[in-house]
């Protein structure tokens, strides 16, 4: 056989070999999770920071939801919260979202996933399962306000936010519970004069500071203050909006958040309040678990009070409009939602509320079907407030894009330490809102 022919055959074999290798590689690559095959387990992708939900679900898997767990075993996977959005985008791009997952740090991402048909219509599923009534109406309304009128997530937490205060310090200094912003400033002045840091807040997280801005906005401009920004009929750079940032910046200028607020992380801020080093702490009702823990709470549960964000003189808002949220929302993948997943969801809807409250002191958006005694007086106050609240509001970044949320949180320490002016802060966030 001539050389040329042999070489030609060899050359012809080369692409065939490459093709075979590619086929083998494709076969080894598996399905990539993108198929709609029935799931083998009930995978829950959670964040490392949140231990309550996964612990309560694990408890349910061995008790009330044992049958559902036997049919479809619960499998918990965790990643740091900072990497959650990236992971969800990656999984969604591969059509490989797990059965249940922490739904992104900003509602915008979940809305995007839903638009792509990757999130299960949980309202429809709950209705089909006959357990829609197991969700508290207030929680449903909060979820719908966040997700453009749709029920896209389950309320494994239901929180209201307000100001926790140290009753003992208030009594010692003769401070009455402030009902207005001016009274709050006067209370802070008194505490500061006594050498007590008036507020503790985590500047490292940023949001505990921006919550004060939204609190002021809701009280001064009314409960639709941030809806108007979302709709584009108002801008954060409007003078009445900048005024809220100025008020919060003024607290920082007076040193009311202590030194280096930008370096204070969440745990340190909590610790400052629970060890009596600060008089007030703006936080959500999830802090009740820390308040109930005697290892963390050195001032005693009896010395912790809870008050709503105060009214602003002449403002359109009311102090009984509490900011509310469902913590880190949890959504369901549409591809993997089968009957067994449905059975799990039904069981969760009926039992999660009682288990989370009994074992962790966490208030959820599910009905509590087994009566549970409140862990402390302040926990009772918060629960009563939740059940009695008629109109709730959201928080500063609730309707913002991911970019605006990030910039708002990272720029907040600069606002209170004076390196960023209130006008500049609002301009930065408004520009980010407009760019996406």
């Amino acid at each position, binding site marked *: 056989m001539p050389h040329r022919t042999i070489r030609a055959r060899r050359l012809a074999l080369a692409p065939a070999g490459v093709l075979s290798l590619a086929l083998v590689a494709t076969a080894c690559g598996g399905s990539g999770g993108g198929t709609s095959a029935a799931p083998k387990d009930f995978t829950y992708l959670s964040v490392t920071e949140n231990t309550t939900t996964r612990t309560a679900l694990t408890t349910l898997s061995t008790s009330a939801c044992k049958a559902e767990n036997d049919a479809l075993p619960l499998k918990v996977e965790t990643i740091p919260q900072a990497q959650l*959005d*990236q992971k969800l*985008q*990656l999984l*969604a*791009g591969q059509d490989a979202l797990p059965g249940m997952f922490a739904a992104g740090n900003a509602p915008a*991402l979940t809305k*995007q*996933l839903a*638009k*792509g048909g*990757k999130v299960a219509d949980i309202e429809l599923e709950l209705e089909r399962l006959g357990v829609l009534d197991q969700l508290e109406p207030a929680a449903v309304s909060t979820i719908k306000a966040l997700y453009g009128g749709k029920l896209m997530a389950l309320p494994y937490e239901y929180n209201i936010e307000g100001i926790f205060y140290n009753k003992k310090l208030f009594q010692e200094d003769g401070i009455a519970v402030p009902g207005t912003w001016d009274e709050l400033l006067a209370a802070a002045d008194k505490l500061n004069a006594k050498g007590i840091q008036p507020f503790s807040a985590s*500047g490292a997280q940023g949001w505990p500071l921006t919550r004060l801005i939204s609190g002021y906005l809701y009280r001064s401009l009314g409960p639709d203050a941030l809806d108007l920004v979302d709709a584009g009929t108002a801008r954060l750079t409007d003078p009445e909006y900048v005024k809220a940032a100025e008020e919060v910046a003024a607290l920082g200028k007076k040193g009311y958040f*202590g*030194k*280096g*607020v*930008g*370096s*204070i992380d969440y745990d*340190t801020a909590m610790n*400052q309040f629970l060890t009596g080093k600060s008089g007030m702490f703006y936080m959500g009702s999830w802090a009740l678990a820390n308040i109930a823990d005697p290892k963390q709470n050195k001032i005693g549960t009896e010395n912790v009070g809870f008050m709503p964000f105060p009214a602003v003189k002449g403002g359109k808002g009311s102090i009984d409009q509490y900011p509310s949220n469902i913590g880190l929302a949890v959504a369901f993948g549409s591809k993997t939602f089968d009957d067994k997943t449905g059975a799990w969801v039904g069981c969760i809807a009926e039992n999660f509320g009682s288990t989370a409250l009994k074992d962790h002191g966490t208030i959820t958006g599910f009905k509590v079907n087994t009566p549970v005694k409140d862990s402390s007086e302040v926990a009772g106050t918060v629960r009563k407030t939740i059940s009695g609240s008629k109109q709730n509001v959201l928080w500063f970044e609730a309707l913002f*894009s*991911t*970019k605006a949320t*990030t*910039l708002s949180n*990272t*720029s907040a*320490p*600069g606002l209170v*330490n004076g*390196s*960023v002016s209130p006008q500049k802060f609002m301009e*930065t966030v408004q*520009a980010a809102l407009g*760019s*996406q």
Partner: protein
Amino acid sequence: MHRVLGDRRAILILLGPALLVYTLIMLVPMVWSLGYSFTKGNSIEGFTGSGLDNFTRLLDDPAVHEALWFTLKYAVIVTAGQVVAGYLLALLYVFFLKKASALVRTLVFFPVILPTVAVGLLFQKLFQVAPQPGPVNSLLNAIGLESIDFFGNAGSAFWVLIIMDIWRSMGFYAVLLFAGLMDIPDEVLESARLDGASGPRLIRHIVLPLSLPVLLSSLIFSVNGTLKVFDSVVALTNGGPGTGTTPLTLYMFQSSFTYSEYGYGSTIALLLTVVCLLVSLAVYRVSRRDNTES
């Protein structure tokens, strides 16, 4: 040898595999990324063509201007700091410590092998003001000065970052330049000394010109590394406060992976590539000219 290298098939066999790997892992992603620059969207919503929108946005985006300015400022200062500190250390090793320099070389080189995250945390603690003042603030307090919130202000955070990165990498440049200084023949130094050159004069007229090639290589290394700074910024300040210490690399990462704007992120990556290319070309041209002169 000439026969082998003159044969086109031999060249193809010798270069082919390396060229294929290089094309697959370097050129294809680069071209792919360039393609993304003309799109908008993300992996969830899909990608659609957007023409030159990302490029016009890049020109108008104040965040890009701020990040580019930060990157250039950082690259110039850290490059100068790394190379100057490294050169001074190398001179110390060669002319003062001589054979006893091994221990000092090892100690100064040590930060190079430390993980960036560990160094970032170390410097956070060193310069922190809260919850407890770090050693630097304690020192300021001890001499009667007020504590400084180094990370609360973009200006001071920038300088902490500069100090950290110079400290972290000067050991590497010291070793690199030390090797260059060792190449200077002893006879040349000896004859210069006999001619009366010593101390600064010896360094200025003999050592510096003879070590210029290795100095310029260090400059190219350093400027390319510093223009692409990412890990040390993330570990120390994460670009904050606000966007005060955000370089182009971090803005590119955030745009792509946090804000899901892959097209815009790719456009920022292209800008960074162009900047690196221009700076490298400029340094390369200078180095060629100086080599000829020296």
